[in-house]
């Protein structure tokens, strides 16, 4: 066990516990954007950066993926940390001025107008990589990936064309921290503008409500190796059936 002092609160943790875990335990809020407990923390947005003192020296580390390997003092509110959060948000606000989540965080941490050219776009993507991780590690389909490098880096379908492997499950939509991916269900079809991909929606055999795409059903059948009632009935009717 290692001794931890986080924002003055003292506790003990098992080796390997992340700073974010400890913070959550002690109900201390650390802002995050690219973190999701269902996938490996990439440490890409840097929003969760905190100041620590360990092995006799001070440094800044990301809370989401820093494993505690010794006695440590953690400050989640130091001047350096607060300044860094503001600067990160200032650049993100300039990048995605229409993102409600970024606007919210900016207001919370005291960022008003960025000192930079504001991008004229309604794109809300901050390239956190969560959509790619979800598709690959949670769903197991790997229909999208990151591409290009540097300021052009972004999640796309291969060759930025319609995907032939996407199943239209919408996991990317749910996991995105800034609502940058839209999913439009209309007239029996599901369309993802960002992925230029469209699916037919399948209706519940009981009530007729659309509940899955045809591709999702095919995929699940293949993975499970067999058919299943959940592929024929919407969640509500499924409960009634069982």
């Amino acid at each position, binding site marked *: 066990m290692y001794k931890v002092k986080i924002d003055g609160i003292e506790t003990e943790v098992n080796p390997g516990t992340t700073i974010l875990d400890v913070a959550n335990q002690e109900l201390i809020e650390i802002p995050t954007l690219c973190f999701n407990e269902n996938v490996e923390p990439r440490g890409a947005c840097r929003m969760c950066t905190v100041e620590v003192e360990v092995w006799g020296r001070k440094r800044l580390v990301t809370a989401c993926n820093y494993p505690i390997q010794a006695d440590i003092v953690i400050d989640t509110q130091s001047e350096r940390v607060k300044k860094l959060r503001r600067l990160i948000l200032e650049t993100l606000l300039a990048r995605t001025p229409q993102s409600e989540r970024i606007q919210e965080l900016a207001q919370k941490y005291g960022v008003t107008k960025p000192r930079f050219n504001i991008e004229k776009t309604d794109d809300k993507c901050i390239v956190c990589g969560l959509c790619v991780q979800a598709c*690959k590690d949670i769903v197991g389909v*790997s229909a999208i*990936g*990151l*591409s*290009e*490098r540097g300021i052009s880096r972004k999640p796309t*379908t*291969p060759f930025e064309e319609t995907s032939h492997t996407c199943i239209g499950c919408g996991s990317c939509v749910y996991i995105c921290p800034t609502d940058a991916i839209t999913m439009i269900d209309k007239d029996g079809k599901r369309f993802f503008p960002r992925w230029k991909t469209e699916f037919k929606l399948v209706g519940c055999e009981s009530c007729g409500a659309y509940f899955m795409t045809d591709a999702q059903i095919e995929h699940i059948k293949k993975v499970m190796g067999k058919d299943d009632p959940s592929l024929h009935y919407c969640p509500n009717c499924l409960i009634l059936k069982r």
Partner: protein
Amino acid sequence: MDLTKVDKILEHHKNDRAMLVAILQDVQDEFRYLPKEVLNYVSQKLEIPIPEIYNVATFYKAFSLKPQGKHICSVCMGTACHVRGAPVILETMKSHLKIEPGQTTPDNKFTLKTVNCVGACAVGPVADIDGVQYDNLTARNAITLLKKIGKE
């Protein structure tokens, strides 16, 4: 598209997924760019999802997803070359060929590129044309050089 050439490349690298960058370099040497069809084929053969291949193909500067010209001219933009006037050389070539770096002339003769240091730092400004390095370039001799190569 002759995919047997791709098979040879994959075989040479023992179908090792860790050799992806080298495999794509060999593909580019063979086809002068990375054709979509070949990338899909490599994805299939190496059992790497195509988004990952596309990621690698668009991340590294060595690769081009568009066909390149007959002569590839790379102007070195390393610090030593910069300090000795590389920007003027680039401007000269841009204006002579009438294209931006990354583009190919309409007659497919030249592709202009920039490269971040070829290690010939003592003799800059340097340009690499078709694997041959030309040194101590000036605006004047850069134009002469392009004209000479354009005739080939």
